[in-house]
């Protein structure tokens, strides 16, 4: 027990330092759709789509927490990770802009897309209310892009790659990468639909998507690396947890 403590303390300290780094660079440089950008009609549509998904996430959380005692702490950890990562601005020298990863890929892999939607909804609500990051009227749209599309992409890519017996770290990397890109793809889709007015949809969609590329291409790779690192770290420290969460099969761990 003492040995584990010795090893854990520096890790917690590192977390604190990362926090300090994030705090001091913490200007609101975001990718979430800001307050008032979407017309009321579209804001309402996305909110109506998001609310049942959030309710379903809550239902799944209650159900799974009854079955597995480690589930609630894992969801708590993922919520904090998603919240921290999704408002951590990272400068991209190649683009001259700042943006942030989403952290939603790892959440989708570990707790599943349904609960991941709930986690993103909570993180986005706190950010919209207190951090001038995103918006209340665009809350639903941001949940769909980050929570639903990001989690689903991460979850599905990871499952498919693991089914094809691809290495755990590579699967995690690809899941993180594509979760990030899927989030921005969906953001471009929502924006183009909402703000196009009389303009045709597709040219505007491509314009927004291409404008995201210089920043999100490298950030997606960073998110992939972070996701691969987290999955591998959990595999080394608590493989039993990954089996319980159905991320891995017991035979895979024994092998």
């Amino acid at each position, binding site marked *: 027990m003492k040995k584990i403590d010795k090893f854990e303390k520096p890790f917690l300290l590192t977390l604190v330092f990362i926090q300090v780094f994030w705090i*001091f660079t913490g*200007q609101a440089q975001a990718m979430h759709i800001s307050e008032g950008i979407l017309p009321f009609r579209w804001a309402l549509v996305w909110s109506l789509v998001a609310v049942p998904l959030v309710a379903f996430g809550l239902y799944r959380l209650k159900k799974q927490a009854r079955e597995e005692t480690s589930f609630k702490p894992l969801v708590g950890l993922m919520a904090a990770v998603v919240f921290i990562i999704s408002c951590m601005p990272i400068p991209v020298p190649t683009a001259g802009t*700042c943006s942030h990863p989403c952290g939603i890929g790892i959440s989708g892999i570990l707790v599943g897309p349904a609960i991941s939607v709930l986690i993103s909804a909570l993180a986005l609500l706190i950010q919209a209310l207190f951090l001038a990051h995103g918006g209340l009227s665009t809350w639903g749209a941001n949940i769909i892009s980050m929570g639903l599309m990001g989690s689903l992409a991460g979850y599905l890519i990871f499952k498919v790659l693991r089914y094809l017996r691809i290495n755990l770290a590579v699967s995690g990397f690809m899941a993180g990468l594509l979760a990030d890109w899927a989030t921005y793809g969906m953001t471009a889709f929502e924006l183009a639909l909402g703000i196009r007015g009389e303009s045709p949809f597709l040219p505007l969609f491509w314009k927004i998507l291409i404008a995201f590329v210089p920043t999100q291409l490298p950030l997606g790779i960073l998110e992939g690396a972070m996701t691969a690192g987290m999955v591998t770290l959990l595999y080394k420290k608590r493989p039993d947890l990954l089996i319980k969460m159905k991320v891995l099969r017991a035979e895979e761990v024994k092998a």
Partner: protein
Amino acid sequence: MKRGRKSSALIIKRGKTTNLILLLVMLLSTLSTQSSFCAAEKWPGVDEAVVKKIAKEQGREARDPLIPTDQGDLLLFVFLLAGVVGGFIAGYYWRVLMVEKGAKKNVQEKEGIN
């Protein structure tokens, strides 16, 4: 006895590595902090550079947030609070999962074997 020494050496080695990582993180954080304060105007967020810009071209503009925390250094303070709370929660649940529940699981496994 030998085994005990080996594991202590391993812990010291791990400690050194993590200290080195800590040092690197601190160095990077200092550099990043300096650059972000000096060049805040030069590094606009992608929301400014892409989302708001294209929305403005299409005749849509962002509104002020409901709670206007983006006033001067107030935003830094709110980020500080959020960082402390977020960091505490992450650290707390990490400890619950990796130390407390991990140790409990190890004990259960040992008892099962014995």
